[in-house]
């Protein structure tokens, strides 16, 4: 089966060479879906964790993805730092920034006993501010990392670029790192405890504020990584993260809020669904696919695939 694709919308770097309408095989879509799924997965883990531990839906999450992408752009394109180093610096910068925000904003709201609703509204304000700060600093136009345009290798009719492989590799490494953190470190176990039962965790002497800051740090680090990787294979623009909000929330909800493994699975499912949907739907409606998956989950099984009862 073949699907029509408009090359003026986002697609892997290798396909941006010419501007004719282009047909993609199902196998190619699977490859693209896996790559996109990895990016969604990384982003969704952070969202899922902050959602559960801070007990609200952070609508600014997408803009942290964007922030990470721009930070890497700043370091690599504007300051001439080696890309790999820029990637690590961007993750660190985003992490630190999110901890700062917790100290200045979120912790204050917690001590006031702010409701989930208040936090959501505030997160919208944060999303708007962050996005426009980036436009103010970098301008509204599309940017790219100073990396050479890679030709893809043709493997049995399917084109795969080095960058796509890098995305999958980095994502796997990060997901394994998360797994290690959650299962083998004290902090990780504290995070799981807080995630399962906040009151019990508090009473057991866990320093809740510290665990919360760690959750932000790790969650937003992953979001930043997702942003840089996405920018690597497509481009960097101010609304890249905001437009991922629906697929990422969809992935987190599908996997079960609070379950990082669920988020990984959810991310892959959403990524693949979106890409494969172009076989039957115009590619502009990809977002509708994740939207309807989310609605279906919320109506039938709101705790998601890996959520509790």
């Amino acid at each position: 089966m073949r699907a029509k694709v408009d090359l003026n919308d986002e697609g892997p770097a290798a396909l941006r060479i010419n501007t004719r309408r282009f047909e993609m095989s199902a196998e190619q879509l699977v490859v693209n879906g896996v790559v996109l799924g990895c990016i969604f997965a990384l982003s969704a883990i952070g969202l899922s964790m902050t959602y559960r531990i801070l007990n609200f839906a952070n609508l600014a999450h997408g803009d942290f993805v964007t922030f990470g992408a721009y930070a890497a752009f700043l370091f690599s394109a504007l300051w001439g730092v080696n890309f790999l180093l820029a990637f690590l610096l961007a993750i660190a910068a985003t992490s630190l920034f999110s901890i700062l925000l917790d100290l200045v904003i979120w912790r204050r709201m917690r001590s006031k006993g702010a409701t989930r609703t208040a936090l959501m509204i505030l997160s919208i304000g944060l999303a708007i501010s962050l996005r426009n700060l980036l436009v103010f600093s970098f301008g509204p136009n599309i940017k790219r990392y100073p990396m050479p345009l890679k030709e893809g290798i043709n493997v049995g009719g399917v084109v795969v670029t080095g960058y796509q492989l890098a995305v999958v590799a980095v994502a796997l490494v990060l997901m394994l790192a998360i797994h290690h953190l959650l299962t083998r470190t004290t902090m990780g176990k504290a995070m799981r405890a807080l995630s399962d039962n906040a009151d019990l965790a508090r009473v057991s002497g866990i320093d809740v504020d510290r665990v919360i800051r760690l959750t932000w740090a790790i969650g937003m680090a992953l979001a930043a990584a997702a942003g840089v990787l996405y920018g690597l294979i497509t481009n960097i623009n101010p609304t890249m993260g905001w437009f991922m909000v629906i697929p990422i929330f969809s992935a987190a909800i599908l996997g079960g809020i609070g379950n990082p493994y669920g988020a990984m699975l959810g991310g892959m499912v959403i990524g693949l669904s979106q890409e494969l949907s172009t076989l039957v739907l115009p590619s502009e409606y990809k977002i509708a696919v994740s939207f309807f998956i989310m609605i279906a989950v919320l109506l039938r099984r709101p705790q998601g695939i890996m959520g509790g009862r």
Partner: protein
Amino acid sequence: MIDYLVTIVLMAGIYAIFSFGLQLEWGYTGLLNFGHVGFMAIGAYTTVLLGTSGVPLFLSVLAGIALAGIMGALLGVPTLRLREDYLAITTIGFSEIVRFILHNEEWLTNGSIGMGGFPRPFDALIGARDYELFLMAMVLIVVFSLYLIQEHLIGSPWGRALKSIRDDEGVSASLGKNVFSYKVQSLVLGSMMAAAAGSILAFYMQFINPTTFMPIETFYAWIIIMVGGSGSNRGVLLGAILFQLFFSGTRFVQGYLPLEPTQVGALRVMVIGLALIVLMIHRPQGILGKKEELSLER
């Protein structure tokens, strides 16, 4: 100078009409609707499409309002039983999908090119120069009528039932109120107001395209009701005026700042985002809202 004032009043009025709907949904019923702009788009495009096809404008506007109400019900039935955060996310998705449809179904809407040159009420009778004045008068009439209607609604037993839902759904139900039905009614009415604002916006701008209805517009309505005061209709009027003054005022000083136009635009919206953050931390009830009536702190 007069032209300038007319524009401010007109735009403030359109945003006030738009925000009245959100006030009913959030300020009085406690619904987190982050997709309000979707209904504005439905109102605008329906009016324009029907108007260009020769349908009398009065009916076109009513059709837009009716369609928005129906879509509100269709959206509300599956989603209004969801928890408030899930409702918020799904409403964002809704307004984005509306925008995507308007963008992609070019055969109907001309896609990103947009639609212009459509008929406006009393076009032939009023000259181009006086038209804005006429539109402003029309907007003012609608704004004050809506204000009176909304005040009447809120003071009624129906309004009281809505407020009880905002306060504590469980108690409301235990007292025999059909919570779900009221929520749907609120969303439907609020959407209809958004559609009315959309139609008037179309007449004012004489041109619409999907980027007229980006999600940020919803959040402009949110900042208006948050600044003016959650649960205060006078707050909507105040908020809309302050908002429009801020927007126009910053355009005024644009020339004097050593910044690119896109930078000024971004700064403007960033200030709005920051204002929302500061408001939520320090004065969530806004200027005219009552602290005792807010459900934002436990």
